[in-house]
Every structure is written in C-alpha cells, then in structure tokens.
C-alpha cells in the first residue's frame, strides 16, 4: 500500500539468552488503529519500545516510510519526534508545569517559537480537557489527568503515529474511562495508533487491526471481528476465555 507508515520485518529482541521477541512481522498503514493484546510477559511492551527505539532490536528491520531506522547512523531522536509515545507510568517531566511539559519538546526539538508552541500546547490541552490545569505540576494532578496531559504532549509534536504502552493499566477504574474517551476520539479522527492494551472492549470497538502475541511471537492478527470473535488458534481462544471469565 502506498500509505504504509511502519513496517516491522523479522524483528527479534533478546535480553541475554532470553529471546523476548521472535521474528515479528506486521505493517501499520495510515489511519490504522492496531491493538496489541496478549498475556503479561508476551513481549507486547518490548515490541512497542523497539518500535520507538527505546530498546535496540537484536535483529530485523523497522521501516518508517520505507527507510530502515534500526541501523547505525540513523538519527534516532529525529525519528522519535515523528512517533509519539504514551507510557503506562505517564513520565511527565516533574520539574515542569502541565503547560511547560507540552511546550518543551516543540521548542527544543521542533524549534518552534515559544508563542507558537504555547498555542499548539493549549489547543491539545483543551482537546484532552486539561486546559484549566496548565499551571499545575504533575504531582498535583490525578493519574487520569496525567495521562491526558501525556497524550497532549505527544500530540503537540504532531506525530504520524502514536504508540500507547498500556496507557490505562496504572489507573483507577474511574479514570480509565476519561483516557479511553480521548483515545477513541483520536481514532475517530484518523490518528494512526499502536496500542498495547488489556482493554478488550477498546480493542473490539476502536481498533482496525488486532495483534495477539504469545511468548514473543505473533500468534494471530487480523480485524478485531476475526481475532476476537472468531479466533483460529487455540492459544488465542484460551487467552480470550481467561479474559472473559474475569
């Protein structure tokens, strides 16, 4: 396809002798919302961190618009500025206010003017419903609010893909909704997203592609209707059955 953004080819990652990812292959096109599901320890987060080069893949390629970004001499920071990431533990900068968190990357990395950065930051903070809190510091707001700020910070960089690493796992059930609402809205606007999640309802309703991972390999992938409602593999069925029970 012409508008393929990310192409993962034969990606493997080992920590010492422990092989966490084995020969991962998949493609993300513009507008795709890919939900990566699987049990804990199946390598979902490692996969996402490899895509953002926070972990260096042991072998394989990650093509961003057809160009490999895993080799030497690749400007990793430049690549990362096109790929937003939202973490499970928010990782907002503790020494800055909410507004400064959303401005600093634009000014330092994208070299935007302060005024322009402020305007963009305010727009996205308004988008996630956090504009009234621009003067607060991360330690003063709740988990759900932090995660919404983190999403605004990533959006303000104008990324082509947004990676979400279990964005709701560290949140109280009450706060999960507000974060999912933002993500659902983003998906509706055509944002390309790669979401590691345990929220099956989100995977079912919002995603366009579901990847089920088991022990470091992609066990099954396809549209949510196929993978979630009519799984072909026994492992997938077992996993989903365990989830339904809870």
């Amino acid at each position, binding site marked *: 396809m012409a508008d393929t953004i990310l192409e993962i080819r034969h990606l493997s990652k080992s920590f010492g002798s422990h092989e966490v990812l084995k020969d991962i292959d998949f493609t993300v096109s513009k507008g795709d919302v890919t939900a990566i599901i699987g049990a804990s320890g199946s390598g979902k987060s490692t996969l996402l961190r490899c895509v*953002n080069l*926070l972990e*260096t893949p042991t072998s394989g390629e990650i093509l961003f618009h057809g160009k490999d970004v895993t080799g*030497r001499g690749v400007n990793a*920071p*430049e*690549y*990362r*500025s*096109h790929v*937003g*990431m939202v*973490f499970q*533990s*928010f*990782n*907002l*900068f*503790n*020494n800055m*206010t909410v507004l400064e968190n959303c401005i*600093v*990357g634009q000014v*330092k*990395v*994208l070299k935007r003017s302060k005024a322009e950065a*402020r*305007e963009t930051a*305010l*727009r996205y903070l*308004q*988008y*996630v*419903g956090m*504009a*009234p*809190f*621009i*003067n*607060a*510091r991360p330690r*003063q707001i709740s988990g759900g609010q932090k995660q919404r700020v*983190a999403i605004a*910070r*990533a959006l303000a*960089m104008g990324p082509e893909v947004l990676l979400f690493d279990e964005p709701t796992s560290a949140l109280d*059930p*009450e706060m*999960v*909704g*507000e974060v*999912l*609402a*933002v993500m*659902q*809205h983003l998906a509706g*606007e055509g944002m390309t997203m790669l979401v590691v999640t345990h*929220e099956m*309802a989100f995977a079912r309703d919002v995603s366009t592609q579901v990847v089920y991972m088991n022990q470091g390999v992609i066990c099954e992938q396809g549209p949510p209707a196929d993978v979630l409602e009519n799984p072909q593999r026994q492992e997938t069925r077992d996993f989903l059955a365990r989830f339904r029970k809870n």
Partner: protein
Amino acid sequence: MNLFSKLVNDVSRLWANYASAYLGGMWSTLKLAVVATVIGVLIGLVCGILNTIPCGKNDSLPRRVLLGLIRFVVRAYVEIFRGTPMVLQAVFIYYGLPYFSNNTLRFDDIWAAAILIVSINTGAYMAESVRGGIISVDPGQTEGAKAIGMTHVQTMVNVILPQAFRNIIPQIGNNFIINIKDTSVMFIIGFTEFFAFHRYITGVNNMYFPSATIEMIGYLTMTLVASFLLRWLEKRLDGSDNYELVSDDQLVMAAGTYSYPDRGSPFDERHKPSREAVIQEVKFGRNRGER
C-alpha cells in the same frame, strides 16, 4: 554564676578590642566558603555529567575508549582528593608546586591558592553526589524526553539536571557548611580567616576560652544562616504547593488571536454522551445485549 559572669565579661572585653578582627575573619571565611563551594559544585556537576554519559555496545570504538578514559580520570580525581586530608592537600599544592618547579610556579595570591584547594576538595565530594543525583532521577523521565525526540544533551539540560540539582541541594548545603568550618585548616598556608584570628588574638593575651566562645558563636551563626538560606532555596525550587485553575475564556484572551481548526474535543458538550458512555462502560461493564 560568678564564673559565668566572668566569661561574659571577658568575652565582651575581647569583642570590644578585636571586633573588627573577628568580623573580618568571618568575612574571609564566608567569602572563601561561598566561592569554593560554588566552584566545587561546578566541578562536581561537570564530573557527574561526564560520568553518566551513556555508553552502549553499539557505540563506536573511539567513543567507548574516550568515555572509558574520562571515567578513569574522574574516578582517580575523586578517590585521591576524597581520600587525603585537606590540610595535606594544601601543603602539597601550595609548597609542592614551587618545590617541584624550582619556584617558577607558585601562588602569589594566597586567596587563589585557598580557593583552588577548597574547590577541588569540594568538587571531589560533589562529583559523587551529582552522579547519585542524576541516577536517582526516575528513568521514566529520560524515556519521556527521548520519546518526544530529545537528544541526550537536551534531555540532560531540560529534564534530568534540574531534577538532579534539586535532589543534591542538601548535599550542597552539607558541603557549604563543612567548608565554612574546614577552611580553618587553611592557616597552614597562612590564609587568615576566622580561626586564624583566634590564634593571633590568643597569642597576644592568653584568653583562650573567651576567644573560643566567640569563635563557637561565630561559626554557629554562619552555619545556621547558611542552613536557613538553603532550606529557603529548596522551597523556592519546589514551586508553589497550590495552582490556579484557568478558565477557557482567559486562555483565549491570553493566547491572543488563535484560530482553531474546530475538530472538537472529547471533553466538549457535543461529545458528552459518547464520553459518558465510555466511562459508564468501564465502570459497570456493558449490557449483555451489546456483547
């Protein structure tokens, strides 16, 4: 009681005669301690930053060799200056340099010598504190900064160092207070600070105990003021405990003329039903029929 009033009497007599000497000594001590602590902290920052430059297996060989060398030099500096007494370092540098260079290299200015010695001593202690301060910042902060495309330098300057600096202020305070007291060993190279005046004055009149009392009170005053100022600085850096909510109107006014592409927000009125639905769903699960 009689003895006590005698002490008060002696102290006030000493003070009446030598107040300017004592105060001058305190001033020298403070100047030396402040300047040396500031320079020492800068040395410590540089060493700590050099020591925490990431070095992975994927880096090129020259880079790894260079970083290894830097780490070795910093380590040697820290171990040597932390592991020897400052009095000896003072003697070693002040008298050693002329001895070693046949008097071509020597300190003409006693201040320069004292500042140099106390600074590099403080730097050796601070290097480890800074390294600790940097590695104690949550790794998530580095990841957050990397994820928005910051380079190592940008991450350090904007995110890590401000937080590390906040963490090491108590250490800076420690070193400052130690410096106020330990500069007294600089008498060995003839630097006249607060304690040197005690030696000088008691040499003239034998009033050891009253003079020591003045010294005690003087040192305690300086260190208490220093502690107070550092606590204040810590509070300042933490920022306010409170924050003001900003209403949307104010934002529009503050940002001047900005034109939204109206994509709406999941948090505006229009999207309230769908937002509520998601929240309800997460809270209570969905209805059977919808599954």
